[in-house]
């Protein structure tokens, strides 16, 4: 099973995937695309792990790949929720709009268009009924309560 040729092909494709993801992460400004680029980095890692796992005839690497999938799912859940929150604030997925926090006296990163931060307050979204509230009492309920 120790076949160096096949191993090199696995590793090469894995490294290419990882590099594409890394370059995309650094160049993209859309938050969802940045997130997907990190996923692509993880897939590159997974592929090289599977390659090594096959090379050594050992299941450890493939087991780690399963764990990577699970953790990536957790990160996706949190990340997409965070992206939704950020989108509601600015109405845009552009990460470059978030540059209020920076060194004092440092000019903002030059953009090709102004930051469209809306002036009006955030819209009121529908929310679930609160739990644990005692329902409002009417005459009818108080009248019949003793009989129950």
């Amino acid at each position, binding site marked *: 099973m120790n076949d160096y040729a096949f191993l090199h092909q696995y*590793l090469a494709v*894995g490294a290419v995937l*990882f590099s594409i*993801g*890394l370059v995309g*992460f650094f160049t993209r400004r859309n*938050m969802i695309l*940045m*997130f997907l680029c*990190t996923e692509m*980095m*993880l897939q*590159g*890692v997974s592929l*090289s*792990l599977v390659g*090594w796992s096959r*090379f*050594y005839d*050992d299941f*450890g*690497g493939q*087991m*780690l790949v399963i*764990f*990577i999938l699970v*953790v990536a799912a*957790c*990160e996706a859940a*949190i*990340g997409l929720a*965070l992206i939704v*929150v*950020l989108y509601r*604030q600015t109405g845009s997925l552009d*990460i470059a709009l*978030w*540059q*209020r*926090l*920076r*060194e*004092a006296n440092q000019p903002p990163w030059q953009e090709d268009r102004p930051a469209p931060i809306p002036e009006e307050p955030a819209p009121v979204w529908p929310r679930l009924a*609160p*739990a*644990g*509230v005692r329902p409002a009492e009417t005459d009818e309920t108080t009248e019949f309560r003793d009989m129950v």
Partner: protein
Amino acid sequence: MLTTETLWYLGPEATLVLTAVVLYLRGVFRRWEDQPIAAGKSLSQDTLSLQIALVGVVLAGWALVRIGLPQESVGPVILDPLGLYIRWLSLAAIGLLVLLASTDASRTNRPEYLGTVLLAGAGVMAVAAADNLVLLFVALELVSIPTYIVLCLGRRDADGYEASAKYFFLSLAASAMTLYGISFLYGASGSLELTAIRQNLVGKLSVSEGYFSDFTQLGVIFLLAGLGFKITAAPFHFYAPDVYQGTSYPNAALLSAAPKIAGFTALVRILIESLWPWEQHGFGWRVVLALAILTMTVGNTAALWQTHLRRLLAYSSVGQAGYILAALAVALGAETAESRSDGLAAVLLYLAVYAAATIGAFSVFEGIRRSGRPVETMEDLAGLSRHRPWSAAWLAIFMFSLAGVPPLAGFWGKWAVVLGAIQSSLSPRTGTQQSLWFMILAAAVMLNAAAAAAYYLRVVAAAYFRPPAQTHTAAGPAGPWIAAVLCGLLCVGIGLMPWPLWNTAASAVEPLAQPGQPLIFWDSSDGNPELGVQTIPAVSLLSPEDAADSSLVHFVFFAPERD
């Protein structure tokens, strides 16, 4: 193999996770009327959640006592003195953070917030217990993922969301880097167990040196990049000031304590425990030494210009990470067991004194309000000594401890680092070039400590000597105040009596520092362990002249009975 015994040995972590589940349930079933209607009113403190969290921490400590120190590796869990030290340290830090978080800004989600803090603490403890790269990775993610949630829950305004976004995206990229490093280590050694990596590398390096050594080198670089994000090492530190500035004080305290303890533990586990035979090629200590000098210089220089308190403490934590990296470089490059033990013990000691001082400083800032709002900048501290003299006193203790002023705990951390570097440099076993570099390292640490004192003293001067403008008041609940007092007592106590902690740290790293001890060779390829003959490069056991003559020495180890 994973058995029920393994779960028992992970009892403290499980206790913290179960407490977090109880807290989440409490958040769901809490009566709606208990929650504050509007800011500014007398807010309900929800002490029950705080009590549940503290009981969880105490129960986890009890579970840790019950486990004891069996000195064995059970499946993916290792129970050694180093792990025990880090687990106690992180448990204490989590207890203090829970106390500190009892005034967190968003009181509507307090049970969820405290539960998430406990989850992050369970992650740090699991990192210390991991003997397997899979468990190590999962534990590191168990630190990261709750941190994202805590950042979102702790402060809900534009700055808070920006801080969450910056931390989240960069942390994702750092996780991928760490994983790529893990995959190269797996590739170079063919195993995911830390001890097995060490044994496999010994065999492989003597057979086909170049091929596997290159992969190990790549793995170390990627691991340092990924874990360097967690410990805010210099080229990966850019998020720290922005995130600290954009979040609340309890969150900043969590960020400066939990990921650092986890990251340094993972580095020690991987670089020292599993890569020790490979490390004799002298690659790791050069990289870590360069990172250390860069980190401390960048952090301390940038901090000199800061006026925002959290930003200043962020750069301060970058600088402190540089000192710990310096101790790690000494441990990696050391040629004798004593030097390696000194370097590793300095890492552990410095982690403890740094955590105490930095959590204490954040607690003091969290515990005071100025005209009803949290203090943010240096000007907000003006007149603190007049209105809240005890707060100013504790703040001075923490700042002096971070600066390394002699009677306090921080001094002993820096003393251990500098002494380790100088001793390693003067050791006759050390080569000329290595000796020179360690001397440069010691000089860099001392110069940086002197420069860092400037900005720490500026904070104290702002609290004591600026004319007061507005009055300071207490922030309400006593949690941050209790945390600050505990941290202050720790700083003063360790400063006056450093030997108990130093001896604990030194004995905790003793098994790691023995060069020959972990090289027991298992030949269990056919099922039953038997006599193994192992070829190891034995440069460190011989003088350089002898090593030039016979670079490979044959050792015979008798494999003990397994079970």
